[in-house]
Each structure stands twice: as structure tokens, then as C-alpha cells.
């Protein structure tokens, strides 16, 4: 039980995928303009991350490993991720056309989100079992969502603030992200996993 809790704390806070491991910065910067969009994106990414993490684990354990095809893991994972993202895209399009329109290109770009592939690959290094894989994927997604929402909320307020001209837009966003990252580094040593 503590194991699972540790995995969650580690993936969400201590080794946050966006701010500590610096993966998945593309949607982090690109979709954080509005809070509603960010929430939609984080939901989509959570779905994709968890599902692809699980599918990747299953594909690896029951297909690649027994057949001694470990060298195919990268391409297989990418295939899995692409399929899951396509599936998610269809679901989003059906359930919320506005979100679909607003997310635009970033929805299929989840495929190339290095955080998603990273989670799938890093999961292997940890020798997690099935449940741990699920939690790993979900924790990564939860951490991503947390940070994305926080950042979006901040960016909304920065957008209407008095920012010097040379800093407006992406520049102040990067500075803010850097400061957030510094803050999250404070979690180091909280748990050791």
C-alpha cells in the first residue's frame, strides 16, 4: 500500500514530469492560455497517459518479452500511443466539439508528447507490475494536469497584468514556468523512490 502511495507522490510531486523531468513542455506552454482549455487538455492527456502506459506494459510483458522482441519496444509503444490518441480524439470530437476545435492541433500532438513515450519507457526501467504501471501512468498524468492547471491559472492573470513589452507573451510564460520548476524542486528528498 505504501508502495503505491510512494509511486503517486513521486510521480505527481517529487519527480513531476513537466517541471522536474522537463518532458511534455510543448502542450504545457501551448495549451495553458485559458483555464478551460487547460483542463480539457489535462483530461485528454490523463486518459491517454494512463491507457497507453497500461497498454505499453501489457504489450511489452505479454508480447515483446516472451517473443524476445524487446528491441521493438520503441516502435510498439509509439504505435500504441498513436492508437490511443486517435481514439481519444474521436471521443473528444463526439463529446465536446468546442474543446475539439479549441485544442486544435495539440490533441493529435499528444502522440509526440515526449512525456507519454517517456512514461511508457521509464515504466520499464522501474520493473513495475501491472498495478504499479497503472499508478505510474496515472500519477504522471495527475502531475501533468496539476501543473498545467496551475500554470494556466497564472497565465490568465498574467495576460491582464502590466507586463513590460519585451516580456509579454511566451517570455513571461517561460520565466513563470522556470520559477514554478524551482518551487517544485523543493520537493526533492520528500520520498525516495
Amino acid at each position, binding site marked *: 500500500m505504501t508502495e503505491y502511495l510512494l509511486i503517486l507522490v513521486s510521480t505527481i510531486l517529487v519527480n513531476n514530469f513537466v517541471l522536474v523531468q522537463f518532458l511534455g513542455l510543448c502542450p504545457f506552454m501551448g495549451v495553458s492560455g485559458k483555464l478551460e482549455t487547460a483542463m480539457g487538455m489535462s483530461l485528454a492527456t490523463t486518459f491517454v497517459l494512463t491507457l497507453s502506459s497500461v497498454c505499453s506494459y501489457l504489450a511489452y510483458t505479454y508480447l515483446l518479452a516472451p517473443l524476445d*522482441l524487446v528491441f521493438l519496444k520503441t516502435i510498439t509503444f509509439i504505435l500504441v500511443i498513436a492508437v490511443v490518441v*486517435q481514439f481519444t480524439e*474521436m471521443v473528444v470530437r463526439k463529446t465536446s*466539439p468546442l474543446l475539439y476545435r*479549441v485544442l486544435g492541433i495539440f490533441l493529435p500532438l499528444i502522440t509526440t508528447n515526449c512525456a507519454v513515450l517517456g512514461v511508457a519507457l521509464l515504466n520499464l526501467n522501474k520493473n513495475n507490475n501491472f498495478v504499479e504501471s497503472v499508478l505510474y501512468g496515472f500519477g504522471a498524468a495527475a502531475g501533468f494536469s496539476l501543473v498545467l492547471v496551475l500554470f494556466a491559472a497564472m497565465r490568465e492573470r498574467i495576460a491582464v497584468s502590466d507586463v513590460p513589452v519585451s516580456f509579454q507573451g511566451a517570455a513571461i510564460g517561460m520565466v513563470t514556468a522556470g520559477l514554478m520548476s524551482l518551487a517544485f524542486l523543493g520537493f526533492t528528498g520528500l520520498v525516495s523512490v
Partner: protein
Amino acid sequence: MWTGILIAVLVLLGLALAFGALLGFASERFRVEGNPLVEQIDAMLPQTQCGQCGFPGCRPYAESIAEGGAINKCPPGGESTIKALADLLDVDPQPLDAEHGVEQARRVAVIREDECIGCTKCIQACPVDAILGAAKHMHTVIESECTGCDLCVEPCPVDCIDMITIEPDIRGWTWSQPRIITTDKQEANS
């Protein structure tokens, strides 16, 4: 070695086929009919049905926007509509395309009754049926329903329709946005 490669290729092929089937099934299951986004966009347009955007009405323009068309073609909607659409669709707001007209104060059509000949051409032209009248009878514009699209001015054979700007009066007055140098701030001496 060849068996190894064969197995690898077969595995990948198998995976691809399985996933392909899954996606195919999913695309059927989650097929989207129509486009509800159009409704949301249409709700933001001012519904003057004037055609200044180049489309025959507000709904066709909404459909064009839903498909990725420009959002800055509506003069009656003005800046506020462009901004609202930009917010909804998460695109950058652009200034109003002058090709389609300029933003003006709201106007209403008024028929000069002395000159009206009762030809019903303006009645047929009005997109919201805001003109009351019948053949050979007096025509008049229902002021509260007129959207100021000025589509009725053209068809009138005796040119008896004027577009009158609505003058602001004390009941329609609202506070303006405060500027840096304010003069109305009340402050008691402390």
C-alpha cells in the same frame, strides 16, 4: 535469424491490424453528425441578417467560421463580437475587415409615409419581417424589431426609407471606461 525477423514483422503487423480494426470500429461508434459548434457561433452573431459579411444570413456565416473562416467580417457585431468569437475559438482577434463595412452606431429604418406607394418590395426584402403593411396599403417599420441591416433601402422604388441613428438618451446612458486621468473619483478628506 530470419525467423526472428519474420516473427518481429508478424508481431508488428498483427498489432497494426488489431489496432486498425479497433480504430475502425471506434470511428463508426463515435461518428459525429452535424456540427453543434455552429450553434454556439451563431448565438454570438448579432442576427441582423444583413449579408455584409458576404454570406446570405448569419447562420451561413457561422457555418463558415466553424469550418475555419475568418471571424472579422461582421460590421454590425463589431469589435465585441470579434473578441467574443476569438475567445470562444481560442484564436487571435483581428480588427474588423474594412472590406465588409465599418462599425456604426445602431440604426433603424424609417419609412417616409408621405412617399410610400405600397409596393411591398421592402416587406419582401426585410429578413426579420419588421415591416408592417400590405399591397397598396401603407408600410411602416416596427422600430423595436428593426435590426438596421438596411436591406430594405435598395428595393424601394421611390427611395422613401431613411436609416436613422438612434440617439443615446439619459435612460440608455452607461458609464464609460475610466482612463488614467480620472476626474470623478470621490474621496473624503481624511
